[in-house]
């Protein structure tokens, strides 16, 4: 049975796109058929991690939402276009597709101005699950809780909420956790990212358990190398020994183990 895995964070800057891309890559490496959809239409970003830029990008989610193409036309086959970057190269021949949002300013402003039918997005997601026979569809959502984000939460089998260990993210995460429970999302996972050195992990775990009534599936460290590399490659594949990469692998295993 195919699963929709939405990755959400209340604010930007939590490392959502990097986490999504690296998790999806590990699931694909495990031999699963994986789709990655960038529904962060306002500020798309995950395409960079899969080696796409404006010139290499074909049809986009925006074209689909504007009725200009079918959802299958949006697919970019990553396994056949891995390029030479050390991390991404490991995905060669794997079944993993990216469904990117347009990075053209005019496309973004058009969709923000005119809006689009959220139901059409839902139809598109359901269709590509079926047509690509996906085991997992990862949805990189826009931060906050707008309609497309609420939709992706509602249809998710697994929702991963990424938060940084600070008060603002806790407050926002509390909102998302409540919404997800109210929408009966079957698997709600909390992932802490960008924990500063010296963080008391046991204490943080206890506080998360007390606040959200669930344990974090991972507390990943602030990754200075990832920040300074400008994030153009899949870090957990090119730097497998890094603590951050180990944390990602552990979470990928959790995702794979969900029945």
């Amino acid at each position: 049975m195919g699963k929709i895995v939405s990755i959400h964070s209340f604010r930007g800057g939590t490392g959502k796109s990097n986490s999504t891309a690296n998790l999806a890559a590990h699931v694909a490496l495990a031999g699963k058929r994986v789709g990655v959809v960038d529904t962060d239409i306002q500020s798309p970003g995950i395409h960079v991690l899969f080696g796409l830029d404006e010139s290499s990008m074909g049809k986009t989610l925006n074209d689909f939402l504007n009725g200009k193409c079918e959802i299958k036309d949006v697919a970019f086959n990553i396994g056949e276009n891995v390029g030479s970057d050390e991390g991404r190269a490991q995905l060669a021949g794997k079944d993993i597709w990216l469904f990117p949002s347009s990075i053209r300013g005019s496309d973004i402003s058009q969709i923000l101005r005119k809006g689009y039918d959220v139901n059409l997005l839902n139809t598109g997601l359901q269709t590509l699950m079926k047509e690509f026979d996906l085991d997992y569809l990862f949805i990189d959502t826009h931060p906050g809780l707008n309609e497309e984000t609420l939709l992706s939460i509602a249809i998710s089998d697994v929702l991963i909420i990424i938060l940084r260990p600070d008060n603002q993210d806790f407050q926002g995460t509390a909102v998302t956790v409540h919404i997800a429970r109210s929408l009966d999302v079957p698997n709600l996972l909390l992932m802490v990212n960008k924990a500063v050195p010296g963080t008391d992990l046991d204490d943080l775990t206890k506080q998360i358990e007390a606040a959200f009534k669930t344990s974090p599936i991972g507390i990943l460290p602030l990754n200075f190398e990832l920040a300074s590399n400008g994030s153009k490659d899949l870090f957990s594949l090119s730097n497998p020994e890094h603590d951050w990469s180990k944390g990602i692998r552990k979470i990928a295993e959790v995702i794979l183990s969900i029945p």
Partner: protein
Amino acid sequence: MDQETISQLKNIDWFDELSDDMLAGLAQKILKRTLKKDEVLFQKGDEGNSLFIINSGWVKVIARDTQGSDIVLNQVGAGEIIGEMALLDNEPRSAGVVALEKTEVLELKRVDFMEILKQQPDLALSVIRNFSSRMRYNTSYIEKITEMSKRVAKGDYSFIGETQASQKGIKQVSDQDKIGQLLAEFFAMVQGVKSREDDLKNQVEKLTLQIDESQLKEELDEITGTDFYVKLKDQAKKLREQRLDNK
């Protein structure tokens, strides 16, 4: 030479243990010079062959930065000494000195000082004793800094409170007291490190995470009150089940 010059000489660290007779001998060799405003006493790189005591007025000690403009390292006024090391080591001047206003300086030339040393072995002994006590003084601070470095490495900053007073004390000894400057810089560094560490700890401690329940309720009501949400909640389960059936 007047009594004033003798008491000026006494102010010099090296000479403070000399007898008045010895000082009177030295004072005879002292030359008085008057500098006009902006007059250069010496430039960086000049041969260092005499010591100066500022009798009245002010001078600035300057160096050139990499862009070629002057930066003022220090201002020196009446009673203070410039270039004392030149009496012994004859090294080129490490910085330039320019009068900020009309300034009277007393000059003791190296050749004259050496001549007196030859005539008065007691004076030489006295200078050596002085050097030795300076060295002891410096060594004691090196030991102190070594000890403190070890404590910083272990994250122990407890000495900051107890040693601040003596840090000020050292600064007053002499501006040329390089070891005192080192200690002052060392303290500034340790305080900087500690304050950054405290900030970081604070950030981590702020993780006493609080969720504002009334704000949470407000935000939830705002979302769950929309038609979109009501419809979505109604359909959510069906949407998931439909898909599962498809696969």
